[in-house]
């Protein structure tokens, strides 16, 4: 088996000091292959560790325990040419379509600097052509966008330029952190469509980080549900959204506000009431304090990843009769069609 492009190996990330700390990510292993042109959604509420996962993979945070590897080498050891290759091959689209722009420069910089640094063009004219081509692909007119300052464009336009940047760079892997959550509803689908195109036409694998189950369902092939830094459920997105197994996923899915007055919020009243309980660091299942199906074992020992079906795993003792998938092999469920 070849070395994976990116890998989280038994990574734990803790923020804060000795007494006042939060476990953002708890013993997570995730293998992301180079030629696996699928979209994996990482879904969770705030504090679930989904953004931390992205930041770790991009090398912006270091792990507290475990390793983050790029082509088999720990990220923090990368220097010179290796680091350069990592930056070239792993790219990102962030949430805030304003903050990614340095207010001092025109929006062109977001496209022209990587072209220059990664030597994607031999001449100014060629660079310009690349930029214009990428902008047109995301439905922007270059003459209306290039040469402007970020504040002169709308949020939707700015975010589309950020996606154009990813299109232009055609990275080996793209991490998108809530790319549409700060964009108006009418413009979201344009951005999602561009991401989908990047994935399907150029075969770029995407990690789609979001709190929004509906867009995750629509754009991705696989899904990982995180809760307080631990995987609750993972696997094929269709099966999981249509028939959630884990009580937490059930709660999430039933809380989706579908834009259809005839499809009201489902009745999981008891869980809804309970989920007000504040989270406490515990040894067992993280969801136990909120879980209506809680058993004694849930509080003492965190559940393994049980495999009720070939294309999904669920970390819940309700499924303990099924085979156990070792945590390190989480990514293998994504290989199942």
């Amino acid at each position, binding site marked *: 088996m070849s070395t994976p492009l990116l890998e989280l190996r038994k990574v734990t990330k803790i923020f804060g000091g000795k007494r006042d700390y939060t476990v953002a990510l708890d013993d997570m292993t995730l293998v992301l292959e180079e030629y696996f042109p699928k979209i994996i959604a990482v879904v969770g509420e705030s504090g679930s560790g989904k953004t931390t996962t992205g930041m770790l993979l991009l090398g912006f945070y270091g792990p507290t325990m475990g390793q983050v590897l790029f082509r088999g080498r720990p990220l923090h050891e990368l220097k010179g040419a290796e680091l350069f290759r990592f930056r070239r091959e792993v790219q990102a689209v962030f949430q805030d379509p304003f903050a990614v722009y340095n207010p001092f420069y025109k929006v062109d910089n977001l496209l022209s600097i990587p072209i220059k640094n990664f030597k994607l063009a031999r001449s100014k004219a060629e660079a310009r052509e690349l930029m214009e081509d990428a902008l047109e692909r995301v439905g922007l007119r270059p003459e209306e966008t290039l040469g402007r300052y970020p504040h002169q464009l709308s*949020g939707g336009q700015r975010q589309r330029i950020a996606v154009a940047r990813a299109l232009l760079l055609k990275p080996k892997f793209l991490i998108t952190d809530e790319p549409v959550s700060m964009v108006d509803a009418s413009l979201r689908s344009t951005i999602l469509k561009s991401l989908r195109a990047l994935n399907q036409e150029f075969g770029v694998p995407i990690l789609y980080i979001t*709190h929004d189950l509906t867009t995750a369902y629509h754009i991705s092939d696989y899904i990982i549900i995180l809760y307080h830094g631990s995987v609750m459920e993972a696997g094929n997105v269709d099966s999981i959204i249509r028939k959630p197994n884990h009580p937490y996923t059930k709660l*999430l899915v039933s809380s989706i506000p579908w*834009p259809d*007055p005839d499809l009201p919020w489902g009745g999981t009243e008891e869980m809804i009431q309970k989920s*007000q309980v504040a989270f406490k660091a515990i040894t067992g299942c993280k969801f136990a304090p909120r879980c209506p199906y809680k058993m004694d074992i849930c509080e003492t020992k965190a559940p393994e990843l049980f495999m009720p079906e070939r294309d999904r795993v669920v970390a819940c003792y309700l499924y303990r009769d099924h085979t156990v998938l070792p945590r390190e092999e989480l990514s293998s469920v994504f290989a199942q069609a």
Partner: protein
Amino acid sequence: MSEPVLQVKNLKVYYYVEAGAVKAVDDVSFTLDFGVKMGLVGESGSGKSTMAFALMRMIKPPGKIESGQMILDGIDLLKLSEEKMRQTRLRKLAMIPQGAMNALNPVMRIDKQLIDGMLDHGVIMSKEEREARVAQLLEMVDLPPKVAKMYPHELSGGMQQRVTVAQSISMEPDVIIADEPTSALDVVIQRQVMETINRLQQRLGLSIILIGHDMGLMAQSVDRLAVMYAGKMMEIGETHAMFRDPLHPYTRLLIESLPVLENKGVFSGIPGITPSLLNPPEGCVFHTRCPKAWNLCQEATPEFVEIKPGRWVACHLHTA
């Protein structure tokens, strides 16, 4: 049909900037009936937040309420003195703010913040009565009594938002304006807060204007829906009818662009960008992005008319 509790007629709110007047709310009219939850939905720049502050009469310079009427219980709010308007807030017209995190005074305990609104509206209470009232308010929004002695930063986002909900019902107002009360919250918490608001609405017989951008949330929680675009009212109607048969092309496109279970992988958006409110397009403000636009749309602004009982729309397709 029930009695209208709030009537807004031809309201105009402009912001005066160097380059001219930004028409944030431009000739908007609607009626809110007693005991009804109405959603006011719009994207950024549609004027929905300006609408909220206009209703509270809290537009700050360079903004100004140009003209119009806002009649609450038969009284035109725009004709009230500053002091009378202050007394109207909370007592008759309360607000649930966006982002409760920043809306609570960080250095004041929750009980003090819950009670001071009542004190400034002339409610006289003994110490015991205050404590009882605070406990009662907290109970109504499903918060434990110990929250009273806590500071805002000790509460989670959902709990903070519940505190602002408790605050808004403390004087049992006629109308509550909820300005994107759950936009900063996770889906589960969002649902809890919305369900709390719904329960209170039924228990206290409140009329609510829920301002937001999320059609999904609207579908789940309101009786009537009003759609705004670029400072103008596009369509108003009963929620079911609006989703089943949207009359305005904007409403239709907005609904269609939202993902549902059945249309996985279909990404249909509204082409183009929202127009500048400084120089809105001639004619219908939506014609630049409307797939059904015809020559009349560029020339004449469509009237906002009631085409069947309770259903209003501003579109030449239906009125011309």
